[in-house]
């Protein structure tokens, strides 16, 4: 491993130079970045390359979007740093950053994740004892872990800033969400590479995986309860995974989805349980293969400068598929959406996998049903259901006898229109008492559209069981159960007639929609009179800026609340945490390598197969175009703004003096790009350190400073903050409102609205 250092430095040295070039030429920049990715594995040839990390490191520089409106100059920001932690852009990951920020500040979620994570740890421990090397962690459990560690990092970073703001005076307060991005990519290969993605999809994805993790934990607990022989369970998990054990069954497909995608068939065929040992064993052989195949990427990247650019500009295989899920009927993206997502990313991939997808599709509803039945609900396991999941009722009422039938369906977010699809008829104008058309559509209108009454009339009447007759009927959507946090997805896209090109077929709708700070769902609830807590307040908005749906930049406005609950990381607490962290690191050390290998492998095969994939992508884009009417569409975003790009470089100059060099960390650190050789470390590693430093510094006057720090923080209670990747800025409410509900069309528009239930006035 130490041997790697040199090579990495070479790679690291290379990147900043390229970056500076790139920042001038917008398109080439992306191209070069890609070139870098390919060249680096080569440099690492003798050893297991770690492109994951090197990629991540390289990326912070890329893709400033030519014009990203509404951004302040970076210098402004540096002057008054907010005591809130931003997230570094890891290459078009602003879609992820904005969502993570919202989730971080989502009331109740942070604590819930921690609790869940502790549950998984308890679970995993016995396993580690028996076979540490064969440690088995389903990827969605891992996501829980990486999310937890992100939360921890952010909290620690915040604490350290609060206690010692001066140490951050010349830098920025941000951490890269590297680990969670990595896990996400493992879970869902769609997020590999540096493409821009839809924030709503990534939100669905993350929530879905956490839900899966909850389910897995719950199942494991049940299993444990059933047969107290823990080891047996383990054996089953470890040995014959493909057997019909319920736990493993539910895991198998997802795991494969996540990990297989980048891998070769040989790996796919090997069972999951054996995946890790196998990959370790086959490392050598793979390295050999790789060394052969790597020649190609190299040459490619070299002669590539001009040529591959075209390839890069073309939509990649995965992108069009995203558009194929324009759900015209699907007003509801229910729990099953997460499984729906998968088949699409797999477009143009092996049949075997799509088979897996189907299996998982079939299984998931079943699983959920089972889960509900076995609602022994260990505390915290219903986190997702409680926070995000509501229930809708589809009610069909016969207009003749006025009796109705109902169907219930769970939802995690609601998609509402921003445009009226039926333009008012000229007939309206001649009305005797025409009602004035409201100029600006309100959110209330949009929800009313969502819950609008559909009439079953004319040729296709409804057969009423009571009347024994075909009658007219009304079908309406109502909220039966509302979640703590209601996510409103604004359908900011409209289908054009041009169906050939999946991008041209859809355009972004910038029509403003009035976004109120509070919202009442009473009107659309099943029991309007008895509902008390149907009042919601806005706490976060994910904004999308960009004129097209295929690119843009995501930012998040979040209203600070419950800041009094923020605790500073104490010495002793942190100590324990640190141990944990170290333990994790040592685990990670090995794992990261393996993953890196997988990843690398994927990259190679990708570069080999680009042509094929393109072909497939063309095909899939065609089908995508056809499917437009049934699938869902999102807004893609992920570009970095120029300013934040500069911030990114400045942050890399900021040196971390306290970085301790453990053996494991060494491997991380050598990937630094920074010319000085110092770096912002992989976020997870750095923060405990920083936290320690801060708390050590404040050791003497702890009480007072802490109080002071917390008081400082409390000033922000109820204030709106703009999280633009690593940048955090304060917004006055009226400024926020102006940004949110602009007078005229602006390309920067709210995309996801997050409302939280307001506490009952009585309580």
């Amino acid at each position, binding site marked *: 491993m130490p041997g790697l250092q040199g090579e990495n430095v070479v790679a690291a040295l290379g990147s900043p130079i390229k970056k500076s070039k790139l920042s001038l030429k917008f398109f080439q920049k992306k191209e070069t970045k890609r070139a870098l990715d390919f060249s680096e594995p080569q440099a690492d040839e003798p050893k297991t390359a770690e492109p994951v990390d090197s990629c991540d490191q390289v990326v912070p520089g890329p893709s400033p979007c030519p014009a990203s409106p509404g951004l302040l100059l970076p210098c402004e920001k540096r002057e008054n740093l907010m005591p809130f932690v931003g997230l570094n852009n890891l290459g078009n990951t602003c879609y992820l950053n904005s969502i993570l920020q919202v989730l971080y500040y989502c009331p109740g979620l942070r604590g819930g994740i921690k609790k869940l994570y502790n549950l998984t740890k308890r679970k995993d421990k016995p396993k580690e004892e028996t076979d540490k090397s064969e440690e088995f962690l389903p990827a969605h459990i891992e996501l829980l872990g990486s999310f937890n560690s992100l939360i921890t990092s952010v909290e620690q970073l915040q604490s350290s800033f609060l206690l010692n703001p001066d140490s951050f005076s010349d830098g920025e307060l941000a951490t890269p969400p590297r680990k969670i991005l990595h896990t996400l990519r493992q879970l869902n290969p769609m997020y590999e590479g540096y493409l821009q993605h839809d924030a709503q999809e990534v939100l669905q994805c993350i929530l879905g995986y956490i839900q899966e993790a909850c389910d897995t934990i719950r199942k494991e607990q049940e299993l444990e309860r059933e047969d107290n022989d823990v080891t047996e369970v383990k054996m089953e998990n470890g040995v014959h995974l493909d057997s019909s054990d319920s736990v493993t069954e539910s895991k198998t497909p997802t795991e494969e989805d996540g990990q297989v995608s980048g891998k070769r068939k040989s790996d796919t065929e090997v069972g999951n349980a054996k995946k890790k040992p196998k990959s370790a064993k086959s490392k050598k052989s793979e390295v050999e293969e790789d060394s052969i195949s790597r020649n190609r990427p190299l040459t490619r990247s070299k002669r590539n400068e001009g040529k591959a650019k075209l390839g890069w500009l073309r939509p990649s295989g995965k992108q069009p598929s995203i558009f194929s899920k324009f759900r015209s009927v699907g007003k509801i993206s229910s729990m099953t959406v997460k499984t729906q997502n998968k088949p699409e990313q797999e477009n143009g991939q092996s049949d075997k996998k799509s088979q897996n997808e189907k299996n998982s599709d079939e299984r998931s509803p079943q699983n959920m049903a089972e889960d509900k039945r076995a609602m022994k609900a260990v505390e915290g396991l219903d986190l997702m259901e409680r926070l995000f999941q509501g229930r809708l009722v589809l009610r069909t009422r016969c207009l003749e006898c*006025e009796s109705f039938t109902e169907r219930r369906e769970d939802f995690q977010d609601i998609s509402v229109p921003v445009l009226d699809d039926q333009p008012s008829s000229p007939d309206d104008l001649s009305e005797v008492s025409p009602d004035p058309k409201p100029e600006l559509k309100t959110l209330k209108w949009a929800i009313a559209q969502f819950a609008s009454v559909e009439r079953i*009339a004319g040729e296709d009447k409804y057969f009423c069981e009571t009347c*024994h007759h075909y009658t007219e009927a009304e079908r309406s959507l109502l909220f039966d159960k509302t979640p703590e946090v209601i996510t409103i997805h604004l359908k900011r896209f409209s289908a054009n007639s041009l169906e050939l090109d999946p991008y041209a077929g859809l355009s972004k709708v910038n029509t403003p929609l009035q976004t109120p700070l509070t919202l009442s769902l009473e009107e659309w609830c099943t029991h309007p009179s008895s509902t008390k807590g149907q009042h919601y307040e806005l706490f976060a908005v994910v904004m999308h800026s960009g004129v097209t749906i295929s690119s843009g930049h995501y930012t998040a406005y979040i209203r600070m609340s419950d800041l009094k609950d923020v605790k500073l990381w104490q010495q002793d607490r942190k100590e324990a945490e640190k141990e944990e962290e170290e333990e994790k690191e040592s685990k990670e050390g090995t794992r990261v390598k393996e993953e890196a290998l997988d990843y690398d492998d994927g990259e190679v095969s990708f570069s080999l197969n680009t042509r094929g994939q393109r072909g497939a992508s063309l095909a899939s884009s065609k089908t995508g175009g056809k499917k437009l009417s049934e699938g869902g569409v999102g807004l893609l975003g992920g570009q970095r703004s120029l300013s934040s790009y500069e911030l990114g470089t400045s942050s890399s100059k900021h040196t971390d003096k306290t970085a301790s060099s453990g053996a494991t960390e060494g491997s991380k650190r050598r990937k630094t790009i920074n010319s000085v050789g110092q770096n912002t470390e992989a976020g997870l590693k750095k923060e405990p350190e920083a936290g320690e430093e801060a708390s050590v510094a404040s050791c003497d006057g702890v009480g007072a400073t802490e109080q002071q720090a917390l008081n400082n923080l409390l000033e922000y209670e109820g204030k709106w903050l703009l999280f633009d990747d690593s940048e955090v800025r304060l917004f006055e409410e009226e400024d926020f409102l102006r940004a949110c509900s602009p007078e005229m069309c602006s390309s920067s528009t709210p995309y996801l609205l997050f409302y939280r239930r307001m506490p009952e006035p009585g309580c």
Partner: protein
Amino acid sequence: MATHHRQNAAGRRKVQVSYVIRDEVEKYNRNGVNALQLDPALNRLFTAGRDSIIRIWSVYQHKDPYIASMEHHTDWVNDIVLCCNGKTLISASSDTTVKVWNAHKGFCMSTLRTHKDYVKALAYAKDKELVASAGLDRQIFLWDVNTLTALTASNNTVTTSSLSGNKDSIYSLAMNQMGTVIVSGSTEKVLRVWDPRTCAKLMKLKGHTDNVKSLLLNRDGTQCLSGSSDGTIRLWSLGQQRCIATYRVHDEGVWALQVNEAFTHVYSGGRDKKIYCTDLRNPDIRVLICEEKAPVLKMELDRSADPPPAIWVSTTKSSVNKWSLKGMHNFRSSGEYDNDCSTPLTPLCTQPEQVIKGGASIIQCHILNDKRHILTKDTNNNVAFWDVLKACKGEDLGKVEFDEEIKKRFKMVYVPNWFSVDLKTGMLTITLDESDCFAAWVSAKDAGFSSSDGSDPKLNLGGLLLQALLEFWPRTRINPMDEEENEVNHGKEMTDSVFICMSLSRNPFFSSFLCENFFHLFSSFTFSSSVFCHIILALA
């Protein structure tokens, strides 16, 4: 019998033949009653049934009030109005037609086929003998009754004016006695007002939050009462173009309204089965008249005296009740009315003064595997066994377990579907569709026919049935008075039987089928005499 026009998507006409298996004389309503009309001169009550039959009852004949049936509709009769001092009755039906009847003799004079969907409501302006019809096709047509009754076979074109502008299905309609204002209520939730003389739109009245199912206008058309599925009754001033009062007396949708001559007291009924009388000037003064056993569909005031001595009420059940209002008169004069809305009122009457008994309607059916027999269950939980081929009831099984009976009569045979059944009228309606009515071939022995020469030919069930229908076409049904009937159908005019033969012969398979020699088999295949086969030809 009647013809149906059902245009399918391709624009091609689909041929359907339907027949109802029923008694020759159906003396009782077999399903809910959608509308009521009293003829005060002859003391007759007309009921418009969901069983497609309009029946005439003698109000004073308590024991056996049935006088006659007026059968021509093939689907629910939704509304009726009595015009020309009781000489003419106009009916609107879900078979999309409006029919003009000689109310005294009980025959159909003409059929108006201008609507394209269920016709739900009629309105009548007595002073002008003007009738309006409206329905789910959003159209309102105005008819001059004198023209309608003067239609003959040679002069059968009617000019109507239509009122346009409705955006949704119309469920209620009202016209004032002078014929100066017409109001429609629809799922659009607004009331739309026209002047029928000029067909000009006058106004839109907004306020209801659900479908408007009942409307009334006062004599000069200045005030309007509306009853809505949102559970409220509203009083509107057409002069001021606004709602002047809202009455919340019902727990559920208000489906029927009646008002006294002076427009001071409204009688209302609806889904909550209760009938209230509310003082329009003082809504606190309201009386619960009675509680029915099913949702109230229509009410008719006995206006032989003022205040009205009784009210006729029809519901989704087949019996029609007359409730006395005399008690309320005492009640009101004594000043003991309940004006506390919070406490439940005790009904003025617990027993109806008079009941026109209804029959049972079939609510459940199961086609047995042999595709010839049907098991049914009616509202009295009686199970019956029917033979579709002979068009008769095979057996009354009484109150037995329906599912058990299905299991018991299960046969291990496969016969393709060749007919469909519907129960919308409360009676068995068998429909043969040209696409599959000749699908079922069975051996003659299996079907229980013995041929003279001992051979076992294959029989086509649908073919047999159609042949039998024509063979035993009930000549008696062609009432001499029916000859007067005119088809107001864009100049096309023909008698029903001609119509049937023509449409059947258009099907090449059917005509060739007619040539085959199955006639000798018919000796063993006759309709039971007790069952009257009523044929409906659906030409789509």
